[in-house]
């Protein structure tokens, strides 16, 4: 029963088939049983979860149900929460307790959700495999010798393994979509500016966006309807964004007449054959469902990874400057002087990948290199945005593989950062252009899940939800679940 959707649980709770407490207890039991193997949660306080669930039952009895009443949602360790630690899976924030909730956490609480622990992630969301976490790697429930993807690996793993019915992730270069694909679940990065970033620990401010990670498309729409909206306290949150009827869009389950673009740059040499086959089959399914497939080109795609690995580290180098040992987080023992405090605190607190990106970003912004790197990357960003604009003049949505390969083995790419960076080759351009995109399961390769990615023009998430829900209804990938040792 752990693989039911949020939507199903919502209905059962409403019908009084079970209480929020009982629901929480069942997920807690499974999560606690599986976590020693999967390492999806870095913090899970059963008492705290049950307390919230009981409060939710009381609220339902006294005032009726709110949109997410009693539904457990796992939270990536990047979201600040007043309850429990917020550590971004970094030693430098070991034991840090945020004195405030992220805006989206407040929204979840107001909607009646039960915050269900903190999930594992790459340190400061910098990674594509969850291997840079200070708490050790999370594992893929389909094959525990493999990575779950990253950076929201713990959230993807928790949902895929039935440890939680849904989770929050963040996506800077694919960190929701890539792990969703590798774990066989659905995950959406909304349009940049759709979800408030306030209280989410920043990696790259112009790219970061939070979003839902769920089993079904409808669950994604349900969570999005709560998470999205203007926050005046985030200057990049857009006040007059195009409104979307989230649940209405995905309940249409219709893609007749939809023009789906197939960008040729997303079907590359070196792509896993199983992945290619699964995505080709998905295109065929869409055709059968009444969509028109149109070949399009996004000519600057090949420059996206390079531009991203200038822009994101540049912003990160500034965003991570506040971890200096002065006010919060880790501070080295007995510093000799100020410089010693800075260097040892940061040397001890940050892992290798975070250091690599801080160095890269610091270099790219340095006097004499700024024009060649940062400024040029921004120009590439503009070209990539224009690529999408031109494509969307011809088609309604784009459909691509989410990742060129299925989940790889733990340790397989850790020695080669550049190969690791290429895991995000299909997801990064979307962040650079600020577009909405959703990854959903579309089959298996070598027994591992394969995901495909829908991309829409900014503020047109409804197109994605309509197409993805139609595809989901026509296939049975949602019913496939991993078999795990230690299952109850």
């Amino acid at each position: 029963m752990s693989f039911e959707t949020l939507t199903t649980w919502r209905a059962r709770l409403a019908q009084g088939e079970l209480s929020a407490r009982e629901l929480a207890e069942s997920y807690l039991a499974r999560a606690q049983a599986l976590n020693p193997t999967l390492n999806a949660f870095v913090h899970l306080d059963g008492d705290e979860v049950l307390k919230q669930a009981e409060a939710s039952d009381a609220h339902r009895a006294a005032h009726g149900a709110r949109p997410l009443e009693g539904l457990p949602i796992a939270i990536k360790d990047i979201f600040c929460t007043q309850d429990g630690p917020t550590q971004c899976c970094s030693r430098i924030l070991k034991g840090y307790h945020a004195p405030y909730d992220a805006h989206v956490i407040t929204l979840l609480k107001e909607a009646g959700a039960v915050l269900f622990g903190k999930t594992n992630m790459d340190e400061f969301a910098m990674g594509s495999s969850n291997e840079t976490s200070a708490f050790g790697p999370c594992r893929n429930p389909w094959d525990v010798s493999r990575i779950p993807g990253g950076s929201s690996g713990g959230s993807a793993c928790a949902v895929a393994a039935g440890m939680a019915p849904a989770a929050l992730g963040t996506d800077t270069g694919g960190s929701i979509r890539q792990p969703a694909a590798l774990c066989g679940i659905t995950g959406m990065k909304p349009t940049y500016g759709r979800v408030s970033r306030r209280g989410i620990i920043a990696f790259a401010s112009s790219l970061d966006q939070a979003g839902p990670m769920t089993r079904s498309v409808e669950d994604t729409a349900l969570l999005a309807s709560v998470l999205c909206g203007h926050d005046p306290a985030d200057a990049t949150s857009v006040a007059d964004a195009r409104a979307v009827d989230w649940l209405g869009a995905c309940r249409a389950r219709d893609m007749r007449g939809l023009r789906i673009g197939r960008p040729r740059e997303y079907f590359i040499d070196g792509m896993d054959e199983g992945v290619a086959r699964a995505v080709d089959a998905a295109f065929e399914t869409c055709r059968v469902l009444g969509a028109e497939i149109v070949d399009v080109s996004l000519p600057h795609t090949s420059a996206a990874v390079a531009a991203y690995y200038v822009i994101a580290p540049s912003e990160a180098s500034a965003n991570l400057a506040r971890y200096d040992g002065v006010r919060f987080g880790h501070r080295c023992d007995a510093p000799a002087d100020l410089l010693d405090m800075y260097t040892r605190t940061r040397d001890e607190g940050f892992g290798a990948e975070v250091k690599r990106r801080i160095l890269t970003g610091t270099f790219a912004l340095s006097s004499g290199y700024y024009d060649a790197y940062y400024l040029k990357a921004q120009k590439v960003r503009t070209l990539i945005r224009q690529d999408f604009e031109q494509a969307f003049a011809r088609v309604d949505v784009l459909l691509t593989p989410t990742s060129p390969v299925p989940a790889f083995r733990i340790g397989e790419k850790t020695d080669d950062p550049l190969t690791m960076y290429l895991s995000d080759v299909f997801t990064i351009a979307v962040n650079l252009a600020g577009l909405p995109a959703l990854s959903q399961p579309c089959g298996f390769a070598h027994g591992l899940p394969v995901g495909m990615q829908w991309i829409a023009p900014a503020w047109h998430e409804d197109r994605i939800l309509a197409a993805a829900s139609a595809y989901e209804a026509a296939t049975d990938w949602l019913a496939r679940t991993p078999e795990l040792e230690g299952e109850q």
Partner: protein
Amino acid sequence: MSWEVVIGLEVHVQINTKTKAFCGCSTTFGAEPNTQTCPVCLGMPGQLPVLNMEAVNKTVLTGLAIGARINLESRFDRKNYFYPDLPKGYQISQFAVPLVEHGHLDIPTQDGEKRIGITRIHMEEDAGKSLHEGLDGVSHIDLNRSGIPLMEIVSEPDMRSADEAVAYLKKLHQLVRFLDVSDADMEKGQFRCDANVSVRRPGEPFGTRTELKNLNSFRFIKQAIEYEAMRQIELIEDGGEVVQETRLYDSAKGETRSMRGKEEAHDYRYFPEPDLPPLRITQQQVDAIRDGMPELPAQMRARFEQEYGLSAYDADVLSQTRELAAWYEALVAAHPADPKRCANWLANELLGRLKELGCEISASPISPQQMAGLLDRIADGTISGKIAKDVLDEMIQSGKDADAIIEAKGLKQLNDADAIDALIRQVLDANPQQLEQYRAGKVKLFGFFVGQVMKASRGQANPAMVNARLKALLDD
């Protein structure tokens, strides 16, 4: 051959908004350390800035007042450096595209007015304060100031002497206070200046400049620039070379010393602040701010001369601050008959007394209306100007109205001709010897008689009448 000093100034002006630049914290000065802080200005993880539009409007107003261009789209950038009182590890500033560009300020010099170019005004946030003294080897940090909005006003290298630099700063100081965009209290660090100084032979290209820091009074600015110019001249004349560096002014020793050289200069790695979209304002907003522009010092000075017939000197004194000018105009409104008398009594009498008390006009113990009450009694002859000065002393001390003091102390002027005649006769009778000498031709004794009569009246006799009646009676 002579040397020419070249000076450009960078002035940090604290904008007097109620709340900080990017959060809702109070900006009140002098609170307990770290009590005026929140997660945003403490740089806590995940916190985001939201721009204070009041600070934007005040920067635009300043730009309009110096005849500058207002950029309808400007941008914020991050200026990166590590320091314990800089919580985020970067300062939000404007680097590539500031809000205000290409303005000017006219300053008085010995050779008449001189126009000083103002390159730009950009907005930024202040850092906190590190406290090292008296803490037994440890440092404390107070982040109350962290995030307070500043305008950095950057001049062209247009000044040619320390006196010109000081004249510019005084003019700027007066302007920002007039516009009510800053309280500009230098002791509270609300108006801070760095000076770029170089020397050259006239007509030659600019020399290598040094940047002087820690100039926190007009006097120190003058001393520091003069010291530094002389140091550079002596260095060059001795065959040396000026190196580009930042130098700290030591006011105790009256000298500048090297703080950091060019190779130790920070690389601030500026880049666009991704947490804030570009700042866009409309021409209508700018126009509305222009419409609300208060009268500027120069306009006010001219109006005072024209409307109230004041001397250039008095008009200048009374338009020094907006508070003083407002006080003057309230006084004229309450005593409209004689604006010049108002000016004299305010500038020469009241301000002098307030200065002795160490008190600003805004904290004056008497109101313009009370002052007008005193001037009314001079105008209608109730008291003499001399008595009025005593009454003013008393008013300042007690806060009472002039009439109450005149009444209580019986200071009313004696204007009754018969009564004055009686006093004169009394004095003449009492001084027969002097009367005889006067009549014998020693006419300078006239003053003696006036003094005696005034004394007999305890100062209350109308002096003009005493003169006239005495003359008449003596020459009988």
